[in-house]
């Protein structure tokens, strides 16, 4: 069923990461990604893995859920690793040689580090942001982080409102699509046979009612918003104000420490484990 596709991927909970301010989490996620890319030495990669595990533990998200999220990306990871193995040239003699194919130790190390990097960035940004922040809080945080742009007339509030509404209606639309598809199937519509063009045509009886009801919904929602005196950003107050709390400071310090350690390793300890790249 279409409805079984989970979207938004938010897992409610009460960990420190769940409680943190969405603005802070957006900042932390960006910092995290930058720091992971800064990591050069093998030792720093080990540290990146360690830190990511710490984040997962803080988030209290079950590791199974994270493995599930990584599963669809296994192909991309293997693909990247595969190219790195064959394309990286090392100084030492190749480990394996067959005609023009040469595999160096450096290539293998680099490929492994590449996989580690992708997996860590994904896991990290998931537990820092998407898994622990409700979509509504996320757009709220984004709006307030970008608020300074309002000065140069960027319609930040409007974009955020659009995003919130879109997110709110995704499940509704999926359910509706399911219903209309079933209704047309009951009249003998056939979505699974024929060539590409025939299949695309077969979707018309689903898309037209779907558009019609989306327009109807949009106009109803607009009316309802007007009835409740919505008039855009100007003079609008908030029911839930965002405040930075001690937990945000704690997470920020943790992240900065992480960054500092990575940089220190890069500068002073780059040669500790031999296969640096």
């Amino acid at each position, binding site marked *: 069923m279409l409805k079984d596709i989970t979207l938004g991927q938010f897992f409610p909970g009460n960990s420190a990461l769940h409680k943190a301010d969405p603005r802070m989490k957006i900042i932390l996620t960006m910092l995290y990604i930058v720091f992971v890319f800064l990591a050069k030495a093998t030792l720093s990669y080990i540290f990146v893995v360690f830190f990511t595990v710490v984040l997962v533990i803080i988030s209290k998200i079950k590791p199974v859920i994270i493995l599930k999220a990584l599963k669809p990306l296994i192909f991309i990871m293997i693909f990247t690793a595969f190219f790195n193995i064959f394309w990286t040239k090392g100084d030492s003699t190749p480990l394996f040689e067959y005609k023009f194919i040469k595999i160096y130790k450096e290539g293998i190390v680099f490929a492994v580090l590449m996989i580690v990097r992708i997996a860590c960035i994904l896991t990290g940004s998931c537990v820092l942001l998407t898994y622990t922040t409700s979509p509504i809080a996320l757009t709220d945080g984004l709006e307030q982080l970008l608020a300074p742009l309002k000065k140069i007339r960027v319609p930040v509030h409007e974009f955020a409102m659009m995003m919130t509404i879109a997110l709110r209606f995704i499940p509704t639309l999926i359910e509706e699509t399911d219903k209309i598809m079933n209704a047309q199937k009951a009249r003998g519509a*056939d979505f699974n046979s024929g060539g590409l063009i025939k299949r695309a045509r077969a979707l018309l009886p689903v898309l037209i009612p779907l558009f019609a009801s989306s327009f109807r919904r949009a106009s109803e929602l607009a009316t309802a918003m007007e009835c409740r005196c919505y008039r855009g950003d100007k003079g609008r107050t908030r029911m839930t104000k965002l405040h930075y709390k001690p937990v945000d400071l704690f997470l920020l310090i943790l992240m900065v420490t992480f960054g500092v350690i990575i940089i220190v390793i890069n500068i002073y300890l780059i040669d500790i484990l031999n296969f640096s790249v």
Partner: protein
Amino acid sequence: MNALELKNITYTYSKKTPFEHTALKNVNAVFKAGQVNGLIGHTGSGKSTLVQMMNGLLKPEEPGQVLLFGKNIWDEPKKIRDIRFRVGLVFQYPEYQLFEETCEKDIAFGPKNMGLSEDEIKRRVNGAAEFVGIDQSLLAKSPFELSGGQKRRVALAGVMAMEPEVLILDEPAAGLDPIGREEVFGGIRSYQKTKENTVIIVSHSMEDVAAYCDNLTVLKDGQIMLTGSCGDVFKHERELTECGLGVPKISTFMRLLRENGIDVKDGIYTVDAALDEILRLLKKDDVEKKDGGNKNA
């Protein structure tokens, strides 16, 4: 004869996820051929899930079976589309599935999918439009220009035009005003009278099923609670009230009359029948009074 027979039907939504929900639990039911069968239950009792079993949109969990005139519809999964032409299902709020430029084309969608000839399609579209009281001038209009009740009837016609052996209607009158309801049920009745096909009406209104159905199946929390003729089912007034369905008001009224010593017949559940019965009693009283007077004289 049984048009549809459901055996051990169990169905779970979102199986093996945290949202798992068992909507039907071991349901056994029969729907009689050539009759108007009522399927009734409160909101969320699994009525819509059950009717989607009947035309193969949902597949029951093992070892459940759906028998259409004695034959399991899942014997040949490849031919499930043919089952959908034989068991026509009108969804709840069917007007939201209209999509063609004109009502005529929309009604023709089903028959076209059946691969019928142009002439036959034309005949069926006109026939179906006649049943539901949509006249020729409306057929050329866009369905998006019609009123709510008209749209609903065009959508009904879209399924009737396939002339299914079993016509199922999921809450056909939901959200309509009294006139709209009367028109919709009128359409269903004239279809059934003419074709003498099996009809299944899903509803949560006891008044509606009492007025239009020959027999009833009551669903409660995904299980069959009662089944039988309207009269038999409405005898269980207490159970029906407990599960939030109740019985037609007129049925309660007649019971109260009986309990207060007025000798009305049992098993009356429509206003018309109640009126006849009360008039009969009044006449009888009159006659008795007259008789008594004569004797005294």
